[in-house]
């Protein structure tokens, strides 16, 4: 019996397509330790979002299994909170109400009314969105919406925080700012994070380990790189850090030399 925190064991995924069966993933094995930040990177179509959805329980893998703290998980749940690429905030609720919905669902029997309010405000403060608590999503910018999405996920006190290209829809400056905020938040909460990204710099900057996927179909894990950089990580200081540059080079080599994707 493995005592890994989160483990994917021989996970394969097939989709029924019109022309037959599409093998998305084949025999994925991955171990994530508690408190670790793992980036999943690969070319588009390599199945990284599929892996995330399988961990989240939104998809059911056709063979193999996902174990969280030794127990199999195949249903979605707040213990594996998801931050979606398009924030997925409910547009008829304010920012406060969006986070409150998650808190109420996960606080049954645990928190009374005042404690619920305090916990919602605590999470909004963590992402620096207390000033906008009564605003609806259509009154917020993309970066703000994504921050509320992160607050909602954190408010569920998940065992694993799953992020599916959370900053993909944002401009470069907002992305940089949110990456720094995410590092600060994760340092405070000590969350275990699995993040899908297509940005090499983001993967190396944020993660403890970068998991590089081979190309689909029948994609699997190609290489795993340990990022031995101390925290807290300063973006500007790292720009000339040899360990950072070597790690970046290794990921780029994997993606663009070893896994040349047909144009």
């Amino acid at each position: 019996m493995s005592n890994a925190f989160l483990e994917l064991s021989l996970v394969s995924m097939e989709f029924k397509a019109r022309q037959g069966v599409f093998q998305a993933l084949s025999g994925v094995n991955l171990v994530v330790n508690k408190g670790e930040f793992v980036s999943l990177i690969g070319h588009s179509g390599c199945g990284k979002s599929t892996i995330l959805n399988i961990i989240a329980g939104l998809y059911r893998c056709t063979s193999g299994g996902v174990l969280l703290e030794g127990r199999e998980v195949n249903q979605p749940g707040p213990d594996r909170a998801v931050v979606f690429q398009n924030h997925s905030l409910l547009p008829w609720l304010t920012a406060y109400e969006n986070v409150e919905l998650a808190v109420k669902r996960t606080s049954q029997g645990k928190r009374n009314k005042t404690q619920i309010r305090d916990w919602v405000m605590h999470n909004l403060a963590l992402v620096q969105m207390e000033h906008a608590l009564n605003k609806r999503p259509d009154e917020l910018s993309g970066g703000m919406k994504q921050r509320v999405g992160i607050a909602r996920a954190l408010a569920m006190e998940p065992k694993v925080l799953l992020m599916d290209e959370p900053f993909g829809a944002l401009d470069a400056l907002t992305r940089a700012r949110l990456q720094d905020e995410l590092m600060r938040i994760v340092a405070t909460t000590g969350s275990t994070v699995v993040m899908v990204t297509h940005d090499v710099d983001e993967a190396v900057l944020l993660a403890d380990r970068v998991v590089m996927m081979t190309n689909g179909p029948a994609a699997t894990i190609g290489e795993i790189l340990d990022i031995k950089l101390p925290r807290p990580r300063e973006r500007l200081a790292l720009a000339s850090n040899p360990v950072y540059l070597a790690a970046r080079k290794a990921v780029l080599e994997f993606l663009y030399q070893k896994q040349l994707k047909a144009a």
Partner: protein
Amino acid sequence: MNNPASVPLVSTVPVAPTQQASRKVEILKEFGTAVAAANSSPAAAATAPAPAAKSPSRRTEILKDYSARLLPPLITVALLVGLWQFVCSQPGATLPPPSKVIGDTATLITEPFFDNGGNDVGMAWQLLASLKRVLYGYSIAVVVGISFGVLVGQFAIAMRGLDPVFQVLRTVPPLAWLPIALAGFRDGHPSAIFVIFITSVWPIIINTSIGIRNIPNDYRNVARVLRLNGLEYFWRIMMPAAAPYIFSGLRIGVGLSWLAIVAAEMLIGGVGIGFFIWDAWNSSRISDIVLALIYVGIVGFILDRLVSWAGRWVARGSSVN
């Protein structure tokens, strides 16, 4: 037309050195303000205080806005009434001009609430009687329509079973239902309400089912991660997400209800604007018909607006508007 590509960004006219320096400063100033404007966050801009008193320029702005919106329809209506007056004042005109209509219906306009017993009551009472029937029929249509719409939208098997029935029944014109209703209920009043119901229920069902089927996957995923149970999903996600579609259906439905009642009342009689029109025709009081038509149109417009405002209030903030 100016082709943007051909307009130079910077003036290519040669300037003297001192002029160049001051021009540089001007450009930098403009850039500076543009950057400052771009840097201010949406939150800061939103909390900037509005001017306390309306300056004269603001008042003229509001005046301009109102006149831009009200003048065109007022002028159009005035032109149309003028045309009507002209055409119907010609010898041999079969319909009365506006001047005659107002003259003949003066008491009807000024005394909408008179009650001389039976069917001889003021216009307001006629309209209210029709509206009461609409209220009953439409309310039933709303309840039944949304229920079936949710059923058909959410469960594919219900869709497969019920949709062919709906598609066939909805093409039957409202008045064609009247004889069957009279045969079944043996009384004019429930028949009229049934006709309203059967006319307005179809757009409600169809639009509701489309709304249910078009709930974005993202919201469903949020509900799954939060492990919302069926009832919570229904009230907190399904209904708010489908609300804009449902209200589209409600709006179409209320318009159809009003059409149906006026037509149905012509056949079943009693107190109601439809009967009033038919009775006026039988007594050759054409001016009364014209007045009734104007009232019918205005009330129909008000009903449509009410449902539209209700829909906008319910779906406030929703992305589909």
